[in-house]
């Protein structure tokens, strides 16, 4: 059932078994699953069914002084049913087992759940995201799509599958409206959580709309599903009992804000682009759309002490619909550059001997890197307030030395493999080739906000436990990529949906899941 807060008496008390705050991919997945399990669920959505500037402005952040960081945060979140899936590009790939493991060279790494506990939910998440079969090999049956024989201890090829993309609000709206168990409240901004005097139990969620109409939701369980920025914001501003905010005993809420540093890093001069394009450009496989990427192997990560890294290839000078929204700033080469390029091309042709007349091409390497958890990269409350009187947030996105070294070394390893196979040569982009380089201005984070309420076995290391329950608060859970302990280098939506399915099962079973943990 869909209900607009405008249509309720101010001061209404809504009672439900479970209250899910946030109507994006995580919140809608949870609400659907809980409703299907026969659990009365109230889903609170800040916006309505379409984009409204007034509502959207409630999520504006206070400037941090770092325009690049602000640019990577502000335009990403959307406040209407479906949340950020309303402008999702649809890129989907599961995390790799290595992404969840403790790695001695990555600070704070290691999820408190194993990969199998997550992987179990990927097939269903694939279905909800309309991705086609899980685990499919798109190159099977077509030798021209087969990836080059990269050394597996250096690089591997893995695949993204594309969602249409599924706009969760529009796609699941009818089902939610028809549900007898799920009540979706629109224009219902959660403005805080009220806890009991010990701070160990949430009693109610306070909601308000821009007209000043208010209501309260009382429920047995609460789930925050507002995205990594607003999950942290809601915990921090719910400070009626604990001055530092809920779940913030160890000052961890908002810390370790991560994205996927995404940037052009190199140009490949390849002898036969049409042949490589068969492998690396987006194509339609058997019933689904896909794209291959080159990934740093787990052996290479371990040997060199690097983060996860992937690259996609994009021919220079051709539009790429997947990046219409991303304005790349690729400078024209100078005359000297052109001469050098020609010399290297001639040299590599002579030794590679694989030239196909007219098939050579220049290809941009777009890197997508894991970001190491960094407590100084964080979301905090600002002095500035929104139209509802709530503190806005300030986001400080901080990258560190391991992030720098990973993207640098990974590109050099790619160069070695491209050269070894005689496919062409790689030239680092000038910013990356420079000594003591700094990140370029067109760096962005992929709109992949993660880690502000990270998952850890101990309250000293994270905000939620392996069941996504806030440490020390019996009935407060968190869904979404804010719980990622580390972020891997693949797009997070599929994993967000998988974790939401896992949490829904846990809640539907009254605090038990098939992995054996108990409430």
């Amino acid at each position, binding site marked *: 059932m869909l209900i607009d807060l405008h249509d309720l008496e101010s001061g209404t008390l809504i009672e439900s078994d479970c209250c899910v705050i946030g109507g994006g991919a995580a919140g809608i997945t949870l609400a659907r699953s809980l409703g299907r399990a026969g659990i009365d669920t109230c889903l609170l959505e800040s916006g309505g069914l379409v984009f409204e500037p007034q509502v959207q402005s409630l999520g504006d952040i206070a400037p941090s002084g770092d325009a690049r960081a602000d640019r990577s945060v502000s335009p990403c979140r959307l406040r209407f049913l479906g949340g950020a899936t309303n402008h999702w590009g649809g890129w989907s790939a599961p995390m790799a087992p290595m992404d969840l493991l403790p790695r001695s060279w990555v600070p704070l790494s290691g999820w408190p759940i194993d990969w199998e506990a997550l992987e179990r939910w990927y097939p269903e998440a694939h279905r909800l995201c309309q991705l086609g079969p899980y685990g499919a090999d798109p190159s099977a049956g077509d030798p021209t799509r087969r990836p080059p024989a990269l*050394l597996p201890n250096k690089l591997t090829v893995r695949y993204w599958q594309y969602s249409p993309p599924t706009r969760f609000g529009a796609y699941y709206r009818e089902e939610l409206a028809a549900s007898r168990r799920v009540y979706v409240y629109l224009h219902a901004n959660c403005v805080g959580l009220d806890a009991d005097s010990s701070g160990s139990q949430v009693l109610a969620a306070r909601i308000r709309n821009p007209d000043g109409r208010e209501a309260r939701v009382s429920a047995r369980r609460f789930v925050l599903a507002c995205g990594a920025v607003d999950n942290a914001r809601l915990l921090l501003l719910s400070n009626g009992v604990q001055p530092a905010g809920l779940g913030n005993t160890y000052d961890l809420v908002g810390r370790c804000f991560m994205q996927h540093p995404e940037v052009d890093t*190199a140009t490949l001069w390849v002898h036969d682009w049409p042949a490589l394009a068969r492998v690396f450009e987006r194509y339609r496989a058997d019933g689904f759309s896909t794209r291959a990427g080159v990934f740093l192997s787990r052996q290479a990560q371990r040997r060199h002490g690097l983060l996860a890294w992937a690259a996609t290839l994009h021919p220079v000078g051709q539009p790429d619909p997947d990046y219409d929204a991303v304005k790349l700033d690729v400078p024209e080469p100078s005359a000297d550059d052109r001469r*050098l390029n020609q*010399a*290297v091309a001639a*040299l*590599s042709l*002579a*030794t*590679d*001997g694989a030239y196909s007349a007219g098939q050579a091409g220049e290809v941009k390497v777009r890197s997508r890197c894991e970001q190491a958890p960094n407590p100084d990269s964080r979301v905090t409350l600002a002095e500035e307030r929104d139209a509802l009187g709530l503190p806005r947030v300030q986001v400080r996105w901080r990258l560190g030395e391991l992030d720098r070294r990973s993207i640098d070394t990974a590109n*050099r390893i790619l*160069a*070695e*493999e491209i*050269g*070894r*196979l*005689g496919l062409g*040569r*790689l*030239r*680092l*982009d*000038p910013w*990356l*080739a420079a000594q003591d380089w700094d990140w370029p201005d067109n760096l962005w984070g992929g709109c992949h906000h993660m880690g502000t309420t990270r998952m850890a076995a101990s309250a000293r290391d994270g905000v939620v436990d392996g069941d996504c329950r806030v440490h020390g608060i019996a009935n407060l859970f968190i869904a979404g990529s804010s719980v990622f302990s580390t972020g891997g280098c693949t797009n997070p939506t599929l994993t967000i949906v998988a974790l939401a399915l896992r949490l829904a099962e846990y809640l539907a079973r009254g605090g038990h899941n098939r992995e054996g943990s108990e409430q």
Partner: protein
Amino acid sequence: MPPLPAALLQDSGLDPSWPADRLLAALRERRAMDFAAGRTVELDGWLLARCEAAFCQSLALESPRC
């Protein structure tokens, strides 16, 4: 063949008198081994196998038009 590249070939265990096909095949093998072992040279951002960079340099020295 100019003396410097020829000397480089000999240093690499290759015989400058070999037919061009055989020399090229041997060079490709050296190049692949260099890349596989991470023996690369960075030249204004380009990452080249050490052997091919050395040959380019020697050819450039012998013939400035290279």
